[in-house]
């Protein structure tokens, strides 16, 4: 009799426990709102042609990224820091600046893992950078970047995870 009573009470508590279990949709929605805001603000900076890189003859990031589309070697940065890091060409320098100066301090220092993929509109990947593998919850979105000069539109895929 006692055992049956305990089992019934246990079942009642189990039902209550399930009823108050976390609202995962709400939690996910909040995280999504925060990550989507952070990612879109970051994409705004990368695609902003008014930010000029003084070490690379005051070229903008979208313009420097347009060099990732070609094998042409002209468009070289003069900064010894960037050259030491392997960023002699505009394309590599842009990726180093984006990774070291923007994505790392904003995302990695907030305990996010990130990946950024630059691709053609047809989906062919051009370059990618990341700070590690994503194993947890993941947010990703695609932002267009219009490269100055050629006017080509590239896709910038930013993914964040924890």
């Amino acid at each position, binding site marked *: *009799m*006692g055992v049956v*009573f*305990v089992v019934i*009470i*246990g079942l009642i*508590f189990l039902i*209550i*426990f399930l009823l*108050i*279990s*976390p*609202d995962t949709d*709400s*939690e996910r929605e*909040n*995280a999504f*709102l*925060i990550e989507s*805001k*952070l990612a879109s*603000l*970051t994409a*705004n*900076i990368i695609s*902003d042609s*008014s*930010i*000029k890189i*003084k070490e690379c003859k*005051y070229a903008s990031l979208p313009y420097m990224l347009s060099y990732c589309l070609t094998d042409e070697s002209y468009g070289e940065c003069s900064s010894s820091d960037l050259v030491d890091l392997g960023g002699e060409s505009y394309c590599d320098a842009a990726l180093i*600046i984006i990774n070291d*100066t*923007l994505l790392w*301090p*904003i995302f990695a*220092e*907030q305990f996010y893992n990130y990946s950024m993929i630059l691709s053609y509109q047809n989906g062919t990947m051009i370059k990618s950078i990341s700070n590690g593998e994503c194993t947890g919850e993941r947010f990703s979105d695609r932002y267009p970047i219009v490269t100055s000069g050629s006017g080509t539109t590239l896709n910038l895929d930013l993914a964040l995870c924890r």
Partner: protein
Amino acid sequence: MQKCRAVLQSTKGQTRGVETIIAVVFVIIIIVILGSIIFMESSKRALDKAKDNQLTYVMNSVENFLNVPELKCSYFGKLCIDAWKAKAVSSISEEDVEFRSYIRRMIGIDAELKLVSLYPEEESFLFINTTSGLTDYSLTQVIRLPVVIENDTNEPGIGFGYVEVRAYLR
């Protein structure tokens, strides 16, 4: 013989009574333990949920605050802070209590806002502090909002960085 049977029945009855009492106590203990676990778990989850909601709210209200003409760059449509305007707002808010409480009402929470420039120059300064210094806070949340920063003293004048929001929750 009858006496013996009566004693036996009485002992049986007593044992059954003790068993019932033990069962009731056992059930009460189980109920208390389960209830405590559920209460603690639900409190923790409610706190986590409130924290997440508050963080989203803080982010939106700070973004709205950063878009006021007193801070925003003159040329730019997106989230862009004029470093000079931020310095001016910082010095006014340090001196003027009413202005500080106006900002506190806008943000809706006790917070510190630090403008950190990452490019072209690395520099940072605390430009808003709405904390009273008298309150004990149970929780601190930090969020970094990427922003474009206009600063005519640097070359080139437009760079980027972030606004670090340190929100203090009671």
